[in-house]
């Protein structure tokens, strides 16, 4: 990957306009609730109230963001009995991420699926997977109507089959962002589509709108064994989620914004997964797009995915 690893960067510059009025109104609305709970206010009540009145990520001033991150670190550290870091690493200027996946190499082993679960703190029970690996007949080609996401063989690849992992395509024209009624999800300058878990109302419009089945809802309370929690987390990425909100692949922004590869790229045993900066003409991702037969999923929908499938062999 050609994006240079960078030193820790300053917190993002949020919008400040209209913030004080909004805060005044929110606080006014909930002042009564706060007053009512102060009398017998336990630490847990305080945390619940902090979560309840949490502002939209992009409305937080740099100071408020710092406070909020500290609040969350304290909460998660107590909850999981270890020191948890929550950062809000901003996008790297001049970087637009892109992904490529070599269908002729993928063997359907699902190592990416479970590597992702570990790295990104997906719920173990109930199970949430950001990556779905589809098994299809070689004879039939890419035809989702004949795809099986629940194949269960002793060994892979199964004869006559090929495999197509699908996760968030990080569309340039993302239909999920368009439909969200509260702007809880948006596309970052580096092309990553993110979700503010503290702002999502759980209406699931985005799940309906996504043509790739990439978004997942926390139907129950997500649970991760304490010892398995990855303590290096991002506010808009892999921090522990709550029940009733939507989540999805964030291209491991806790890694990629620090110059590392996403976990699925790291763990793929056959090198089918490629990741890099689309704006860098020397990058591997650009080489693939320019020299291989690439295609994107559901091209006719004009979602303009930055996730490219190709046949490398």
């Amino acid at each position: 990957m050609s994006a240079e690893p960078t030193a820790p960067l300053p917190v993002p510059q949020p919008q400040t306009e209209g913030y004080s009025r909004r805060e005044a109104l929110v606080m006014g609305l909930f002042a009564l609730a706060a007053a009512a709970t102060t009398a017998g206010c336990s630490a847990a009540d305080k945390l619940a109230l902090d979560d309840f009145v949490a502002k939209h990520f992009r409305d937080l001033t740099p100071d408020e963001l710092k406070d909020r991150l500290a609040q969350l670190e304290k909460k998660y550290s107590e909850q999981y009995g270890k020191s948890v870091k929550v950062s809000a690493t901003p996008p790297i200027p001049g970087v637009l991420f892109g992904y490529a996946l070599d269908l002729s190499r993928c063997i359907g082993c699902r190592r990416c699926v479970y590597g992702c679960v570990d790295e990104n703190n997906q719920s173990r029970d109930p199970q949430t997977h950001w990556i779905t690996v589809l098994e299809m007949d070689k004879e039939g080609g890419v035809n989702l109507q004949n795809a099986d996401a629940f194949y269960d063989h002793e060994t892979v690849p199964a004869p006559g089959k090929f495999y197509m992992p699908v996760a968030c395509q990080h569309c340039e024209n993302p239909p999920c962002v368009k439909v969200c009624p509260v702007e809880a999800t948006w596309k970052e300058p580096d092309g990553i589509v993110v979700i503010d878990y503290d702002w999502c109302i759980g209406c699931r419009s985005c799940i309906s709108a996504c043509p790739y089945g990439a978004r997942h809802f926390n139907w129950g309370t997500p649970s991760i064994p304490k010892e398995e929690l990855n303590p290096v987390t991002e506010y808009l990425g892999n921090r522990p989620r709550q029940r009733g909100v939507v989540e999805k692949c964030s291209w491991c922004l806790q890694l990629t914004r620090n110059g590392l590869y996403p976990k699925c790229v790291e763990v793929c045993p056959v090198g089918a997964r490629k990741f890099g900066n689309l704006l860098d003409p020397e990058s591997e991702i650009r080489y693939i797009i320019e020299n291989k037969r690439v295609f994107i999923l559901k091209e006719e929908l004009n979602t303009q995915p930055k996730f490219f499938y190709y046949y490398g062999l």
Partner: protein
Amino acid sequence: MSFIRKISNFVTGTGRMALLGGNRWYYVWLAVLVACIVQAGFAYAHQYQYGLISTNMRDSVSWGFYIGNFTFLVGVAAAAVLLVIPAYVYDWKPIKEVALFGELLAVAAIIMCLLFVMADMGRPDRFWHLIPGIGHMHLPSSIMAWDSVVLNIYLIINLSVASYLVYCGYYGIHYNRKIVVPLVILSIPMAVSIHTVTAFLYNGMAGRPYWNSAILAPRFIASAFCSGPALLLILFQILRKVSAFEIKDEAIHKVAELMAYAMAFNLFLFGAEVFKEYYSDTHHLVHYEYLFSGLHGKASPIAPYAWISLAFAVISFFLFLIPKTRRMPLTMNIGCVLIYFSVYIEKGIALIIPGFTPDQLGQVYAYVPSSTELRVAAGVFGVGFLLFTLMVKVSVAILFERGDQAAHA
């Protein structure tokens, strides 16, 4: 009498009218509704504690029975008021008298809609994120945000008009036409818009070919014109039997005639959709196959309902098309019940579920609502019918039984 005094008298007086002076069946009916609501309270408490995992919705089929009911009731709310069009546009008296009841039905239906949306939300505690000023309403791009705008405006308009009319009736003063007529006229395009915007909610999703059809909004309006009036016709006949409420046969026949046109149009639009899907025979046909039969050799659990809905729609159309059966009370009422359930199945089951089945990656999850979903839905209908019953009881007492009630207050 001061204004505040007048209002408090009005509230206590109408409260008394709502709760006192019914016959035995009235109280049995209220008790049934309260029981529905109480059991739903327990079901919802369970859902609130454990999350939406207590429904049968999952990532594949991420909207289900709640949103289906919501969609159906938006149609009822819209159509109840659309009946007002002939009354006000053509100044056609017999319907005008009952326009108030259309508005009350709209109020009850919208409240049910909002309750269904709340029941479906993962984080109902964050509803305030949708309030302009303190939240982030994603306008103009999110249709869901638009829907919450138009539904709330529609609720406020109908609630204002209906309570103003009842208030005037209570004190025996004539209502001010300058206030009522503009609001009623405004409620007509609003009625069209709530159902259109709700259709656009689905329609605008290019990744869901089952919904991505330009005639979805017209189909919503046509089917609403079938189910909403059906409910009102049955209500009018019950009220005419059990209270001093008056409605001329002429008005009932006129509404039934309008419904016959709506049913014809509804079936025509449905046929156009079916032709396009089956004749072009693209990959998108899978959703219709799931609706009417099944996929990969497995029968679809919703197919029987889809066929029942279609059969009911055809039978009721003929009952309403033929003037003799349209006017005969028995056949007309059978037709009303059939078309009501036909549209209920069409919006509640046949619109939402096949849109998600198979899902975006071709996987089939055979969704049927869980007992929690059924119980919560029963409670929401309980709330709606209870509100509607109480409002109608008061309105009938004031508008048709007059006499000493006003003097009491």
